[in-house]
């Protein structure tokens, strides 16, 4: 299990990195490498060149303001998780990040890298999508912003072009009166989840004005479902069950060696109820505070 040969550049500026990437159609970007390197070692991928962006300046920053949290391409999961400001402005970040693999992987893996790896079993892509965030990408041709809804093209496939580097991700702040929840169930602690659900609930008093849930590991791409209609009559066991029904209409759980589709659907049902309630309570507690 050793990688095939590749050429390597470690540019000192973003411009050099973009040029290196543009110059070689077989090149790939190396950031945290926690998903890429195993693929290389198993020879499931064999890029001709790695453009190591770990030497680029300023990309490791986590910037938080009232609008939300901006993560540079080299911000490690662990740094974002430990960033109190980021967690205050968008509490779903630490809730979800605590479930990303194990601590050692979070030390090196980058959140932006995880987004553009576009794994439907990963936590952060669905979080970005649930929150309506975006990713800024750069290439020698210029810069553009990709909304989360437009980022995921298919299994392990983002809509970035080959010559583009994701330089920053934006997670909007949690609105006043809104709450979030996150829970996942994995076979082993730290594994990719069999099913995970993130929820965002906005309340007006006891009334639910917005309820959305994001699902990982139950579809080919990170999937967000609007569950607001199910909770028109408030939030109780019956409406939560209805919300789960609504969600399952939109999901396509599949069999794999760890779980049947039927079991995944059950987990989606159970977790939907749990995280909606958690998000609802969270919204209430924020309003009270």
């Amino acid at each position, binding site marked *: *299990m*050793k*990688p*095939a*040969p590749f050429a390597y550049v470690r540019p000192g500026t973003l411009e050099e990195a973009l040029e290196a990437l543009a110059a070689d159609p077989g090149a790939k970007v190396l950031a945290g490498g926690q998903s890429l390197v195993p693929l290389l070692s*198993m*020879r499931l991928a064999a890029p001709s060149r790695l453009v190591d962006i770990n030497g680029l300046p300023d990309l490791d920053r986590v910037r938080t303001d009232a609008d939300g949290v901006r993560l540079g391409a080299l911000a490690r999961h662990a740094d974002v998780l430990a960033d109190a400001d980021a967690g205050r402005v968008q509490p779903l970040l630490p809730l979800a990040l605590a479930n990303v693999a194990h601590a050692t992987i979070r030390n090196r893996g980058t959140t932006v890298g995880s987004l553009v790896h576009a794994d439907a079993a990963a936590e952060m892509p669905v979080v970005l999508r649930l929150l309506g965030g975006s990713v800024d990408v750069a290439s020698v041709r210029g810069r553009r912003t990709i909304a989360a809804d437009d980022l995921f093209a298919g299994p392990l496939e983002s809509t970035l072009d080959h010559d583009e580097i994701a330089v920053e991700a934006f997670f909007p702040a949690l609105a006043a009166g809104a709450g979030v929840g996150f829970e996942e*169930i994995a*076979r*082993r*602690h*730290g*594994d*990719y989840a*069999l099913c995970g659900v993130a929820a965002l609930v906005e309340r007006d008093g006891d009334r639910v004005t917005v309820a959305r849930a994001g699902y990982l590991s139950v579809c080919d791409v990170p999937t967000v479902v609007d569950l607001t209609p199910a909770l028109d009559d408030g939030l109780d066991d019956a409406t939560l069950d209805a919300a789960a*029904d609504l969600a*399952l*209409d939109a*999901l*396509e*759980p599949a069999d794999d*060696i*760890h*779980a*049947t*589709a*039927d*079991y995944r*659907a*059950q*987990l*989606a*049902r*159970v977790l939907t109820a749990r995280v909606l309630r958690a998000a609802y309570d969270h919204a209430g507690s924020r309003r009270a505070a």
Partner: protein
Amino acid sequence: MTTKLFGTKVNRVEDQRFLRGRGRYVDDVLPGPTLHAAVLRSPHAHARIRAIDVDAVLDIEGVHAVWTYDDLTGAMAEPLPLLIPHPTLTHGRTQYALAKDEVNYVGEAIAFVVAEDRYVAEDALSAIVVDYEFLPPVVGIAAARAATNLVHDDVPGNVGARMEQENGDARAAIAAAPHTLTLDLDIERSACMPMEGRGTVARWDPDSARLQVWTSTQTSTGVRAAVAAKLGLDLGQVDVITPDVGGGFGVKINHPWPEELLVPLAARTLGRPVKFTEDRREHFISSAHERAQVQHIEVGYDDEGRILGLDVEFWHDHGAYTPYGLIVPIITSTQLLGPYKPANYRVVFESLYTNTVMVTPYRGAGRPQGCYAMERTMDAIAKDLGKDRTEVRAVNFIQPDEFPYEHGLVFQDGRPLTYDSGDYPASLEKIKKLVGWDEFEQFRAEMAAEGRRVGIGLACYVEGTGVGPYEGAHVHIETSGKVKVATGLTTQGQGHATAFAQIVADELGVRFEDVEVVTGDTRRMPYAVGTFASRAAVMSGSAIHLAAKRAKEKALRIAADALEASVEDLELAEGKVTVRGTDTSIDLGTVAVLSNPLRYAFDEASKAATQFSVGDPGKPPVAEDDEPGLEGKDFYSPERSTFASGMHAVIVETDPLTAEIRILKYAVVHDCGHLINPMIVEGQIHGGVAQGVGGALYERMAYDESGQLLNASFMDFLMPYASEVPESIDIDHLETPSPLNPLGIKGAGEAGVIPSAAVFAAAIEDAEGFPITAMPISPSELFALRKRHAPVVEEVAQRPSRNSSVEEPRDEASRNHPTRSTDR
């Protein structure tokens, strides 16, 4: 015998090097500028090889050589040895070091490349072109039994062996019994999965025409004999050294692996040291697995649950080849009996070929399957009679006054299955107390009031340990007073250097720190068997004890001469021989000097020796029946195995919604006779339990129909982390010493893993109320079972999802059949 250290917790001496990063595992061995090997392995489960084109390989810079079957000659071109033949193994088959004409599992070795480093060697593999003709693969026991396709053309029905043993007339007894029931059980594959895979380094020394081999094995003497035979070398030309081994658990007792022959061959051919280090994917597809069996049990019993007749039929999946013979199914068929004495017992098994990785012993070696069959039967009888599960077990126990107990069967070592000692009723009392058996119904009610679902399970086992034929030891007291001990079997983490030093320090009255133990080096002890079957402490421990006694006898004899005292008046303590009750003494090191008539005064001990005179001046300096040096060598060869035993109990909680399975309490009562080092024994139990948890709840080999292993990585083969094992394990020991060896010890290495499938199945069944007949079990499978049994289970919290409400029960659900029970 002074028992100062025996039986006490002594911190391990080997830990010093491991903790400093100075362990020496095979991949750390670098005997000069070394080349590295990689192996091309079959991507297909069953195919004929039409042609192999290696032309492109040698053009790759850094590649030194490539071998395919056509390059092998002499014994290397013959199939690998069938290590343990058996008369009923009528169709034994082994693979070639490199595949000849046909491949029979994904992972079978086809070509061997040697290059400057492993990276380049792997590059070269992708340049080899193999032309395959696909053959239909046989995957799983059902396909093997159906025999629509054959793994080997010349093995009808895919049956490698059919074996039957009977004590009494089981079928007649069942026919006449007041109650009978039938169970169909299923258990899947797992694997040893040591953290260090296999690995071999070899160096050919042209000056002395000798081969040195370092290999990660459980038997250095076995590998040595195999390498010599296959390479056409004299045994004396081959040294095999087992360095630190990063776990074995059985997989490294099989030998020789293809690479254990190809690496030495390459080293001799190329005149450079060569190394092969197996990577994780290779370990999954090219080493060995174990466990898979399908079992059919018929049992007849009386009103008390006493078994009158037990008739067991099982089908054992042994994979593509049978290098290790029938050891695993024979152990299942005999050790299935556990602590019980069914009046009549018949067992029949078929050992079947499939196009999957071969099966050789994994810790427990067939016992977990046997225990599962027997303990599930006990639970089913109890349920049928409405009795407490411990009561049914108790009426079937062999009683303490019945030892030695003969089962009327032949064990794995070819000897009668005879238990030496044990006290099963006492163990049962201990485990009930330890787990809180009698208080459980109250606990269940309390939990139910909180909406929580719990269950309790119990499983008992007996384990034949310390199988022969022998082990030997050499004890050498140096003139410094330090003691060098060698025994031939190998070490994979069991702390032999500590436990064996405890035995020697006690026997010789020397400081523990002054005893150094070497294992697995054929230069130091060329006669040895290996470390497997929980035999090291019993076999080498006893041999070392005997060898130390011999050294002690000689020391006392020489000291008596030197001190002009009689042997009976001498005692050995603190590194000295002292005349009892006086302050007249002589250092053991000085005795060592005196034992050797060649006395250049190199050191203080030699000078000190000049004040003494020993030997008869009228005789030669080395007497006819003597040898120079203060050494002892002896072998221990028991008549038969010694039988350890134990009982495990577990309380589990199953989530009503998600079907997750949580362990609330795990209790172990363990009887391995006298304990040399309780800390090490408990460590073995902890590790065994963790592997058992893995095997029962997490691990399986997920083969698809085409014979591809879908989970050949640590991502998808779910070995437990700390988060998946019980937070603590309550352990109680019972010590019924073995009468078969001088230390009264029994083996402990495998015990922890034996009852797992049985005990978890029992506890989950108890929590859920429906039969659990297929293991391992995942939450997904438990969820499917709940649906299947929904009409009989109350308060089922889930309901079918819209997407799948019309689905047929899934395959995995149908693996768990309800128990059929008929009263007459």
